[in-house]
């Protein structure tokens, strides 16, 4: 499988009928009208389900409180920006937002770096400890937060990192890096080793080869890694609620829980906050989405 890392979307040569069809059943890519309707119908319904909940929250965020709380179904009712104004100017939302951006960006950058070097070493070198490390990466996926949270808390306390953002960055790296290294290893496997050999004949050491030759070819997989690490950090709740103690250090995931008092949830503010929280994740998604399929291709194939 020589998956070249061009960023152009892959177009399988499916629908090119070479000779007039000798069979009387419809050829691939030239299907009956009923089939087309069925296909598009299913995809449209699926897309609507996929975006429906998001769209409803977005619509609700522009409604005034009484309209959100009413049972009447309306798509748009007295559109207002009041919910956004409240969230942005009357709460600690901007602080939490900044904290989340810092944590997520650091996790993403360090995460990409660590998983890329590790994935490359796992893919190219048969060093003692390679297979155990691969197994360990799989097993770490099974560790429940509940077992790790107390000892990690103790370690962070010893290091004096409780209630600081680096504590979260480190904790999130332990969640994201094993999977990402695994995924990148799969992708590096699909890049021909002849490239490494050529580079080493040209006098590149292993680090230079990795950085100058292989890394640029692995852009799709790097994009997926970035997306994955960012999202991990952006949406995590358990560690954030255990390690962060003061309002000025909360991340969004934890801070927003404050809008949910037990009985009288402030739904209209929550919807606006939800939209604001989703926007940065959406931007990262837009950058990565072109690469998602090709980046994960090789990643999923072999352990």
């Amino acid at each position, binding site marked *: 499988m020589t998956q070249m890392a061009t960023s152009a979307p892959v177009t399988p040569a499916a629908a090119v009928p070479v000779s007039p069809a000798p069979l009387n059943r419809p050829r691939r*890519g030239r299907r009956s009208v009923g089939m087309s309707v069925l296909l598009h119908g299913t*995809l449209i319904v699926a897309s609507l*389900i996929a975006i429906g909940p998001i769209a409803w929250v977005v619509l609700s965020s522009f409604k005034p409180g009484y309209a959100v709380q009413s049972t009447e179904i309306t798509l748009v009712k007295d559109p207002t920006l009041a919910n956004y104004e409240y969230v942005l100017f009357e709460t600690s939302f901007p602080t939490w937002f900044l904290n989340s951006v810092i944590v997520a960006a650091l996790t993403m950058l360090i995460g990409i770096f660590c*998983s890329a070097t590790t994935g490359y070493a796992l893919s190219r070198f048969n060093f003692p400890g390679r297979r155990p490390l691969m197994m360990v990466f799989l097993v770490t996926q099974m560790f429940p937060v509940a077992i790790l949270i107390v000892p990690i808390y103790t370690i962070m306390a010893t290091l004096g990192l409780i209630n600081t953002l680096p504590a979260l960055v480190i904790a999130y790296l332990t969640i994201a890096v094993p999977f990402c290294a695994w995924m990148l290893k799969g992708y590096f496997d699909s890049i021909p080793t002849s490239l490494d050999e050529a580079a080493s004949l040209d006098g590149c050491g292993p680090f230079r080869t990795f950085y100058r030759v292989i890394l640029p070819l692995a852009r799709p997989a790097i994009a997926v890694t970035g997306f994955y690490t960012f999202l991990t950090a952006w949406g995590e709740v358990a560690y954030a609620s255990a390690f962060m103690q003061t309002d000025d250090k909360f991340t969004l995931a934890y801070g927003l829980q404050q809008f949910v008092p037990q009985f009288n949830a402030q739904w209209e503010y929550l919807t606006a906050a939800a939209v604001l929280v989703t926007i940065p994740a959406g931007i990262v998604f837009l950058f990565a989405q072109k690469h998602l399929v090709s980046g994960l291709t090789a990643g999923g194939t072999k352990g």
Partner: protein
Amino acid sequence: MTTVTADPAPSGAGLLPKLRRSWDKHWSAWAMVVPVVLVMAVLIFYPLINGVWISFTDQTEANQLAEICTKSITGGEVCKENPNAWSFVGFDNYVNILTGKIGEFWLWAGNTLVWTIAGVTFHYGLGLGLAVMLHRQIRFRGLYRVLLVLPWAVPAFISAFAWKFLFNERLGLVNSLLNAVGIDSVAWFSERWSALLVAILTNIWLGVPFMMVALLGGLQSIPEELYESAEIDGASAWQRFRAITLPGLRPVSMTVILLGTIWTFNMFPIIFLVTEGQPAGQTEILVTGAFRAAFEGIRNYSLASTYGVLILSILLIFSVFYRRVLRKQGEVW
């Protein structure tokens, strides 16, 4: 794994020169993995071993310290031995949990089973169906793909909130729609199975995109010629799917099903935020039940660790079993 060069057989020599040669040969590889290994050793393996140890004690937030120090009036510190210091209790925690004396292990385990099987089945089934459809040459393929992957980009706690909002008893869209067609509002979160249903729906919605994208990648790696020749041989669409698509997807499927099972089993935020265990803890899965049992009120470290060890053991047994079954069917993995 074709990219790895084989190790030359070591000629019989002392340990030291052997180590030396090994170092000369492999230092760059080790240098590349060392940061990750170090961080994981400190933050995963030490906590794991520590956690296993704690599960055999009765440590809580209150009795964790061996000494209690109080500032005296003169400014010095006086330390006294903690009268209720923690102690080694053997398998007491495990017995208490498994016999249902503390928490409701079997109820939660049952929920976890339903939750995981439903989640993974629908993730994989829907993901495969959508991937196969998106793999065909159709108009608006790019648009469909973006829309269908979108739920992946939404942070889990936001999805949890959005679905909770949709199914809110009083002002949720779902009940409003039900009312519109003349059905009474349903109190989704006051009954075990309906609450669990909402949580499972949320999780399905959230997890399908990953499966779809991974399987779409797998589909693209199946050579198109296989389909063409099968078609010339007169194979029907269903036969092509059975004989080419499914076997071709096998490596990807095996990996994503294992990962999906582990991830769903340990999926914390959805249950924690959507049902909050309502009503009365009947919809907790193991991870959320453990978290609430151990961290609400006085933090019970030993209990948390015991649950953790149990959960980890279940998953380990599952994956060993899973791999054994795969290997029997001739999968080298």
